[in-house]
């Protein structure tokens, strides 16, 4: 058994850059590379793509990512773990097989399925968000349970060099290889709590190395155009030392690690995953060298008996329209335009929002005193049950050209279909993860 395992994270969301993962696979001296590419929203959208075409529903960047990474992964003996399977991990494996064949490479791919539990859903389950039955949210279109490290372990026990999953809790992608390599038990709550701290710090990739951190003059980060992504050297006792590949941009220090440790965390003493209820309140972060942070002290209590399920539903359509005003009294003219739209549409939309971009659009208010802006963009958004109704918003805004205040320009209109997300819990005994092997 190795004394230390190095795990890198090469993507923190579906749209992440490709280059940092390639650098990690090439020069990172990794044992494992994880690509975390699935958000609450992403899986429901992937389910929609799968319904339109049963061969799709996996991550849109899958082909590009695998094509660049595969030769480096095999040359350097790095195993890849990723949730890029999204709504269709089996189809994702077929795509990887065809890429490997084209490149003349022999590989085994393990697919973890079982997260799609739409068939088990009655619609009477209670939504965590509304405390009402799920079916009241709208027509249900998808349901994916967050699987844990236990679902990935059988895949790691095979010879597969690529493990591809659908919905898995983000930290579990990192907990699984640690448990597999070190022979830890999933019942050792403190160990799994520390493994979850490691996974949570790594899962957003660049957010640990200075991405989403910089504020010029206040929090400066060097060479962000070439931001590198992080890895962790984890010892058998769970101590983790985080670092990044020499020569890449960014910074990894205690401040970047603190922001990431608390990112999207509700109660820091009870961070719930399928593997453990982790406790972050004793975590210690220590800078032990340039771009080197040591993390210890993660704890936990035994894993929950239920798994969280993300449920997608059809939430109708959103229509948007925008138009700009600039120069003297730009805000005054934009406000007049907004009031015209308000009067024309208020009886047809229960939920209509009017923003003055450049003034109050982002925080609905502006904190403190700020001088008037030179330019203002009016933005109107409204929810509707049908595409046609939603289109009215943009049409009315466009009509401001000849029916509204002076000097409006650059009108744009958009309509998009909305997938809503609600959540519920399901007993873990009702969920049966499976592993399927593919060979190229």
């Amino acid at each position: 058994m190795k004394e230390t395992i190095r795990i890198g994270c090469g993507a923190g969301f579906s749209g992440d850059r490709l280059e940092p993962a390639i650098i990690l696979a090439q020069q990172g001296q990794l044992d494992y590379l994880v690509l975390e590419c699935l958000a609450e929203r992403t899986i429901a959208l992937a389910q929609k793509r799968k319904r339109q075409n049963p061969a799709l529903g996996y991550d849109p960047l899958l082909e590009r990512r695998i094509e660049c990474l595969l030769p480096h992964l095999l040359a350097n003996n790095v195993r890849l773990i990723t949730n890029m399977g999204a709504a269709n991990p089996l189809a994702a494996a077929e795509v990887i097989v065809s890429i490997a064949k084209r490149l003349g490479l022999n590989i085994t791919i393990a697919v973890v399925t079982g997260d799609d539990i739409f068939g088990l859903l009655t619609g009477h389950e209670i939504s965590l968000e509304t405390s009402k039955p799920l079916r009241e949210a709208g027509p249900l279109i998808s349901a994916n349970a967050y699987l844990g490290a236990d679902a990935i372990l059988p895949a790691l026990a095979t010879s597969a060099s690529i493990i591809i999953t659908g919905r898995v809790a983000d930290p579990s992608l990192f907990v699984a290889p640690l448990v597999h390599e070190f022979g830890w038990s999933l019942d050792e709550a403190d160990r799994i709590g520390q493994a979850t701290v490691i996974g949570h710090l790594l899962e957003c990739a660049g957010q640990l190395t200075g991405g989403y951190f910089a504020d010029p003059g206040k929090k400066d980060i060097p060479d962000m155009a070439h931001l590198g992504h992080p890895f962790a050297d984890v010892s058998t006792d769970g101590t983790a030392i985080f670092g990044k590949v020499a020569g890449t941009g960014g910074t990894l220090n205690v401040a970047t690690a603190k922001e990431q440790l608390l990112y999207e965390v509700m109660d820091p003493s009870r961070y719930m995953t399928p593997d453990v209820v982790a406790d972050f309140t004793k975590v210690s972060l220590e800078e032990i060298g340039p771009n080197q942070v040591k993390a210890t002290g993660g704890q936990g209590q035994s894993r929950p008996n239920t798994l969280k399920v993300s449920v997608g539903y059809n939430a109708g359509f959103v229509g948007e329209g925008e138009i700009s005003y600039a120069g003297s009294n730009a805000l005054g003219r934009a406000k007049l335009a907004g009031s015209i739209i308000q009067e024309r549409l208020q009886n047809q939309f229960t939920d209509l929002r009017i923003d003055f971009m450049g003034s109050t659009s982002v925080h609905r208010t502006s904190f403190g005193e700020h001088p008037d802006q030179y330019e203002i963009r009016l933005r109107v958004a409204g929810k509707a049950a049908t595409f046609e109704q939603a289109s009215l918003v943009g049409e009315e805004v466009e009509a401001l050209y000849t029916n509204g205040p002076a000097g409006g320009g650059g009108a744009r209109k958009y309509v998009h279909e909305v997938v809503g997300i609600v959540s519920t819990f399901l007993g873990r005994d009702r969920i049966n993860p499976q592993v399927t092997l593919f060979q190229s």
Partner: protein
Amino acid sequence: MTIKLYDIAHSRAGDKGNTLTLSLIPYKPEDYPLICEKVTASAVSYHFRDLVLGEITRYELPNLPALQFVCQQALSGGVTTSLTIDTHGKSLSYALLEMSIDNEL
């Protein structure tokens, strides 16, 4: 003297459904007692009175040191159905840092 939180701390926002999380991390650990004293859950609720419709809970993390705020009903319904520009509420960390406090304990 009145100072802005921006002068002494940094923050990152996160989202879970319609719930917003905001960290508040002092640049200098010695400012932790000051923010504990001044940046209470009720002070933050008042600061965000136009945005956050639900309860705000504060968690203390002396081990980092840092504070964490969990704000319910803060994201106009959540990332997929909100009509706002910033549907994740990612920019709201800077709305928290706009808050002013008296810098004497």
